[in-house]
């Protein structure tokens, strides 16, 4: 799965997510990616989130929306991302990752899987990674 979250100069938030799903899936299986609130969510008033990982768990937990609602309650983007991903993993025993931008451009990155590749650009500098910490 791949995804992107952006906040433009006008303060608008947008999110895109695309995937081939999971290897060996049944013909006709639909995962979290096209289900709004699970794989993707954006709200100019709060934040945007794109998720990746075990689709059936992500969609049951409505992972993207859960992160956005935590931010709405006052939690910062990174803490909200970590808290929701870990909450899903604890509850459903499968892993996931998510990237988040708050409406102010605060970054959240967290994954409970072994690895997740991510990158963002701030002030002309690229930050990127794939390992924990």
């Amino acid at each position, binding site marked *: *799965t*791949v*995804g*992107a*979250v*952006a*906040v*433009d*100069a*006008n303060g*608008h*938030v*947008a999110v*895109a*997510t*695309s*995937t*081939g*799903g999971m*290897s*060996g*899936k049944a*013909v006709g299986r*639909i995962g979290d*990616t*096209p289900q*709004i609130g699970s*794989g*993707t969510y*954006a*709200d*100019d*008033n709060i934040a*945007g989130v794109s998720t*990746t*990982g*075990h*689709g059936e768990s992500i969609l049951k937990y409505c992972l993207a929306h859960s992160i956005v609602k935590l931010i709405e309650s006052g939690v910062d983007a990174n803490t909200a991302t970590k808290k929701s991903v870990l909450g899903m993993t604890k509850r459903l*025993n*499968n*892993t996931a*990752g*998510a990237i988040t*931008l708050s409406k102010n451009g605060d*970054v959240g*990155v967290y*994954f409970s*899987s*072994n*690895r*997740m*590749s*991510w*990158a*963002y*650009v*701030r*002030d002309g500098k690229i930050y*990127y990674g*794939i390992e924990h910490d």
Partner: protein
Amino acid sequence: MKPIIIVHGGAGDIPDSRVTGKLTGTKAAVIAGHDVLLKGGSALDAVEAAVVSMEKDENFNAGYGSVLNLDGEVEMEASIMDGARLDVGAVTLIKDFLHPISIARKVLSDSPHSLLGGEGAKRFALQKGFETIPPESLISQNAKDALQKFLKHGEFGRTEIGIKDEGGVG
């Protein structure tokens, strides 16, 4: 405010052999999206550009390089959301197109619906001028290998909590 973009290239048990490709492709995607923002493009334009970049890259499970279903076919899905109007466009069960995210964008902008699937999504895409490509052109060797590993295991990977298989998760 200063525009900003962040991307991901998928989570899971990414083997060492795939790390360099993932990092290179992820950086290329974020630069593609950032360039759009620098030119005054919208957040929607930027996220579409970033995802298009990764859909073309076999290092990612989207577009070319997507994993395979039990019939050995690429069957993709994508979604895009506009936070200004809470408007969405999404497609699922879509085959034979390189850029599902751009079709999802068209669903957002040109359709009264939010999610189109299968044959209907294909018909919509063709009506909007998207061209199909041969299905085998979306299939990478890595995706074939991942399906064979899956068939050998006989059960779905559950990331590192279960079996270790790079094809196990999105």
